[in-house]
């Protein structure tokens, strides 16, 4: 089972996690990305995420399929915000459910690392006096 989505609206973490295979499985692991409040000392007012939507959706689908076929996980969720995201809000939520946590950790790690490498989404930091595309990855 998988749920893959780009959305403009805030991420409803509780509902999504509750829907992630909690009944069948022993462990749900999640990664939540949140914009930082400052960038090298410069206060960030908000972020703006631009996506190549059709391709981003396809790439996230591929990542989920690869995770589901590489580890015995039963559920995989990837939700990424687009548009304006304020500090304190979530920019991305990834969740996997697995009977055993080893597999859950490995799959979650693969998913977030690969999302940050291949999914065509770009982040712009907006400051009081300008804005800048973020290029160097954590």
């Amino acid at each position, binding site marked *: 089972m998988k749920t893959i989505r780009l959305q403009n609206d805030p991420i409803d973490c509780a509902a999504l996690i509750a829907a992630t295979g909690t009944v069948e499985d022993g462990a749900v692991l999640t990664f939540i990305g949140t914009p930082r409040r400052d960038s090298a000392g410069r206060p960030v007012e908000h972020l703006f995420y631009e996506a190549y939507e059709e391709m981003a959706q396809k790439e996230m689908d591929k990542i989920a399929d690869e995770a589901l076929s590489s580890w015995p996980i039963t559920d995989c969720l990837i939700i990424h915000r687009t548009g304006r995201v304020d500090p304190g809000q979530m*920019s991305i939520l990834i969740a996997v459910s697995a009977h055993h946590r080893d597999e859950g950790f490995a799959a979650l790690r693969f998913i977030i690392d690969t999302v*940050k490498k291949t999914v065509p989404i770009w982040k712009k930091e907006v400051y009081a006096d300008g804005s800048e595309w973020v290029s160097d990855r954590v």
Partner: protein
Amino acid sequence: MKITIKAFASVKDLCGFSEREFELPEHATADDAVRRVERECAGGSAGIESLLLAVNEEYCRGDRVLAENDILALFPPVSGG
């Protein structure tokens, strides 16, 4: 032949368009298209250096030969998450 070029993020800012049609010679490659965009829109090659390419929503290399109606996307390294 006619192809559509899409540009994203900093590449879009540099090129001044998010989507535009271009007329290219048969058998033109993705690299040929990039050189055309650099010349016509970006005032030279500086700035589109670590460019990523996709044709019809799939990553490709610069030597990819384009076909009529292809959609070529130009964008910087991704920074989602």
